[in-house]
């Protein structure tokens, strides 16, 4: 298992290096942004002197390398600066929306994974049958729907009949009435259903298609033929051999997409008025809130990198061949 740990170590190191690179490139990216960075101070009535003072306060009057050093040091200690808009620490300001987004995204992804994987497997197994064709077409269709449009359609045609709320994360006044945790949880979940369903449906299409083709690849392998020769039943073959092998590429995909969904939730959050990280970043862009943006970028890239790392770890668990 020594080889294994060195693998994990190497992946961890790699993740770490990528994070460092991301930190640096984030700095560069935002330094490339044109315009007066203090314009985001939303202080159009302020005097130039005051703007200069603020620039000094944010360290913007120093040389770029100096700024970089300060930035790296601060980032390392978890200080991502203060939002230009609210003047509050970025990390805290980011955490609020992230906290809202994560459960919604998880719910949607879980839905997509469980359904997409099942359908993909069944579809590959029953290749060429009606079941297969139906799921391929529905997968293709869902995969092709513009996210925001699907969300709008859900509002149009599903929210009403199902009696589901179409915006926000919770009934704003429920907490005020203090009804206890159960109704609050139910309420939260109800608010999560539509956005999560949108994510779920979009991903579901993708997952179905990918699971299917990955499964088909596995089913074409010689060991499947061997397993058949050994007299195993189809179900045994799928369960014991095909599934695990076809899961390998899917795992990476799922983990990678988790990170992206977090950022990609913007569209869904916009439609459903869901105060999550996507919406927050979008707002920060229009407000030119560079500290927030830089922090948000870092958060997202780091989460993608970490997800990647997790995928590597899982891969390591699932695939004995991975040792170097």
């Amino acid at each position, binding site marked *: 298992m020594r080889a294994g740990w060195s693998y994990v170590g190497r992946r961890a190191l790699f993740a770490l290096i*990528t994070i460092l*690179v*991301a930190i640096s*490139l984030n700095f560069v*990216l935002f330094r490339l*942004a044109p*315009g007066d960075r203090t314009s985001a101070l939303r202080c159009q009535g302020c005097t130039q002197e005051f703007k200069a003072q603020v620039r000094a306060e944010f360290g913007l009057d120093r040389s770029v390398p100096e700024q970089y050093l300060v930035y790296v040091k601060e980032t390392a200690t978890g200080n991502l600066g203060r939002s230009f808009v609210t003047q509050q620490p970025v990390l805290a300001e980011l955490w609020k929306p992230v906290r809202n987004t994560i459960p919604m995204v998880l719910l949607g992804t879980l839905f997509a994974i469980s359904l997409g994987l099942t359908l993909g497997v069944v579809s590959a*197994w029953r*290749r*060429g*049958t009606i079941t297969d064709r139906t799921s*391929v077409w529905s997968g*293709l*269709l869902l*995969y*092709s*729907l*513009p*996210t*925001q*449009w699907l969300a*709008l*359609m859900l*509002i*149009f045609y599903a929210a009403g009949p199902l009696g589901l709320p179409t915006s926000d994360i919770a009934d704003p006044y429920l907490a005020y009435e203090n009804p206890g945790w159960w109704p609050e949880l139910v309420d939260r979940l109800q608010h999560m259903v539509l956005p999560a369903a949108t994510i779920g449906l979009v991903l579901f299409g993708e997952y179905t*298609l990918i699971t299917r*083709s990955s499964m*088909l*690849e596995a*089913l*074409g*392998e*010689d060991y*499947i*033929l061997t397993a*058949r020769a050994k007299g195993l039943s*189809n179900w045994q*073959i*799928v369960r014991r051999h*095909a599934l695990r092998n076809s899961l390998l590429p899917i795992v990476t995909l799922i983990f990678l997409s988790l*990170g*992206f969904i*977090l*950022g*990609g939730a*913007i*569209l869904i959050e*916009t*439609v459903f008025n869901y105060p999550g990280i*996507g919406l927050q*970043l*979008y707002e920060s*862009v229009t407000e030119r809130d560079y500290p927030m943006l830089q922090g*948000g*970028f870092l958060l*997202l*890239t780091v989460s*993608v*990198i970490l997800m*990647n790392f997790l995928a590597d770890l899982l891969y390591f668990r699932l695939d004995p061949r991975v040792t170097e």
Partner: protein
Amino acid sequence: MSPQELAEAIIPATADTRRRPPVWRFLKGHPQAAIGAAILIVFALIAILGPWIAPYGPREQVGPIFGTPSNPHPLGLDDAGIDILSLLIHGARITLIVGFTGALVAVLVGGTIGIISGYFGGRLDNLLMRVTDYFLVLPDLVLLIVVASIWGRSLRNIIIIIGLVYWTFMARLIRSQVKVVRERAYVKRAQALGASHLRIILRHVLPQVLPLILAQTVLMVALAIFLETAISFLGLGDPNAPSWGRMIENGFDRSAISYGAWWAIVPPGLAVAIVIMAFNMLGTAAEDALNPRLKVSHLLRRHFRMRPLPDKDAAR
């Protein structure tokens, strides 16, 4: 026999189809791709002929705000009283142009980098892949919003952004393919003959990866259109170009939902979905066709059939 071998073993026996152009053969063998191609041709025609076949202009107010679908306006009117059907027809052009050129940028950039990286390998490869990694971990939609709002929103910028977001996928994919092709004996043979890198790339490597690049381009166009609608929806689209994405945005922004004006949102979304789906149908079919590993399945519900023995005399 491995699936590849099997596939190859079968080809010579069926080689008489070889004279027909491969595209035609491919479409014939894959109804999914054929349907996709047919849809795309229809939309391409619409895009080309748009100004002539649209009943009204893209700016022409022909009735009340959110006029309901009726005889002269089968898809109703939008938030400025403009005929939705006409808008759809006019928008096809922009949407398709953005899709194609965006994908083209991605393919050109990603393809070049992928080929260079995969073919030469070594340090250059390492360096290029690290850069790709960074772009790969950047959440694309967020990157795009930042760039769009910083650079300003014009069609050209949107196209560049799409290229910027998607070139990494392309680069990765092509690179891995080129790495495989590079090890092929016929490439080695050309090297042994003293052929220049350029010649090898152009004559041997590129033609080999081209079908895959094409299949990916098709899928990339779908992604690009997808992204265009997303950008537009977030209000970052080019205000001078009436794309389908902007139609959805307009409807959404101007409260078509609350108005109950489904016709302002459903048709453009459907149009996008159909076009994307057509591209996806074509692209995934091509991708599958190019993947020999999908040709064989050892586990199927159906099994071989029994049939009576052939008539011995007839066989003689």
